[in-house]
């Protein structure tokens, strides 16, 4: 009886990993998908929070791809383990805090652990030589295979013909001639293959699937580390960096101010972890105070929050100050004039 070979596909939700998985399914291989969650994945987060986006269709693209391909998908929570990748990337960062090459090595390493535990035979990714400047280059392909420990068990179906044959090809588990030789940044071969497979709908490339490639997010994360004196974070910290305006008027504290109702609701979920401020005399945002406040700082923060309320031109704005234990009091302040909000405060 012929053995049914099994492959684990790294599924991001984008077109390339979708095509790679389908290409291997076409060869009679049983494929299941893996999606690694680092905490920095873009996948719909801010859309889920913001009220104006509430009516947009919410879809996790990795799940959607798996459903289109008729395969199982396993999410792998790597939030804790990923910290070491982010803090000390052996191959350095990209343009911002994105450790893309180390990240790819790490994910393939985790996939290798998974296939061993689950008795699968090899790993596939949607990588294409030259597709991304940091992690998908001719020189980095063998680095990922070697440093992840996957070696010849790592197959990239979309550019396999540009690379040495892997174990599945050498052993005849799959037909190398039916694989592809894509390279470079052009998307035309992927589009053509998508058409061949009958994929009329797929996620468009949107400049990365990770918040660490975002300049503003990286500034906020660097500020978080600097304020704490160490590169440390918890999931709540990195989620909060995705929400609201972050202003740091003093090194000791920052104010996170919601920009709209959905963000206000989201921040409300943190009211037992942070002192919060909410305007009561006028419609306005909810704000969280993060850090150590000195005498006078609470008033400064309240004036900042009032500045972003409907009472910005009023003489006085009243706010409710809520302590972490739920006790409240009222504060009346003059909104801070825009000219007094220094440019450097906004992260």
């Amino acid at each position: 009886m012929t053995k049914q070979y099994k492959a684990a596909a790294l599924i991001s939700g984008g077109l390339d990993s979708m095509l790679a998985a389908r290409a291997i399914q076409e060869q009679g291989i049983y494929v299941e998908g893996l999606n690694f969650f680092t905490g920095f994945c873009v996948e719909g987060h801010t859309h889920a929070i913001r009220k104006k986006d509430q009516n947009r269709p919410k879809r996790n693209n990795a799940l959607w791809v798996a459903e289109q391909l008729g395969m199982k998908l396993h999410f792998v929570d790597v939030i804790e383990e990923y910290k070491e990748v982010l803090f000390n990337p052996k191959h350095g960062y990209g343009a911002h805090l994105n450790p893309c090459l180390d990240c790819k090595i790490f994910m393939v390493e985790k996939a290798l652990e998974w296939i061993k535990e689950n008795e699968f035979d090899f790993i596939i990714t949607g990588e294409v030589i030259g597709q991304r400047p940091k992690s998908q280059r001719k020189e980095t392909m063998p680095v990922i295979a070697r440093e992840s420990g996957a070696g010849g068990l790592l197959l990239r179906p979309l550019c396999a013909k540009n690379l040495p044959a892997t174990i599945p090809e050498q052993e005849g588990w799959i037909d190398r001639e039916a694989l592809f030789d894509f390279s470079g940044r052009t998307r035309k071969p992927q589009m053509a293959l998508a058409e061949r497979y009958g994929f009329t709908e797929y996620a468009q490339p949107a400049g990365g699937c990770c918040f660490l490639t975002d300049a503003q997010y990286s500034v906020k994360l660097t500020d978080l580390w600097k304020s704490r004196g160490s590169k440390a974070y918890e999931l709540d910290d990195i989620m909060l960096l995705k929400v609201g305006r972050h202003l740091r008027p003093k090194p000791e504290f920052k104010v996170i101010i919601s920009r709209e109702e959905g963000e206000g609701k989201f921040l409300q979920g943190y009211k037992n972890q942070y002192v919060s401020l909410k305007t009561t005399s006028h419609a306005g945002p909810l704000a969280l105070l993060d850090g150590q406040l000195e005498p006078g700082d609470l008033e400064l923060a309240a004036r900042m929050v009032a500045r972003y309320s409907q009472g910005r031109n009023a003489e006085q704005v009243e706010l409710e100050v809520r302590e972490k234990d739920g006790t409240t009091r009222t504060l009346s302040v003059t909104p801070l004039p825009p000219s007094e909000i220094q440019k450097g405060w906004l992260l």
Partner: protein
Amino acid sequence: MSASDEVVTVDARRLLCPMPVIRVQNEVKKSPPGTRIRAICTDPGALSDIPAWARINGHKIIATESLDDEHIITLEVGEA
């Protein structure tokens, strides 16, 4: 009591997708077929993500309901 009589609650409030799915997935892994799992979520994305995850992994959605800002999805664990 049979597995289907039990309802295990997963509190995924305040978590954004895919964390509610991951919490459900972790609970499913340690539950025998027939167990019912009730996920309480605040991310409306869970209303599509948890059923999609359940469909592709062979589990059955029993009910979904939304009350104010909370969304409750109940599924029954399928055969592995």
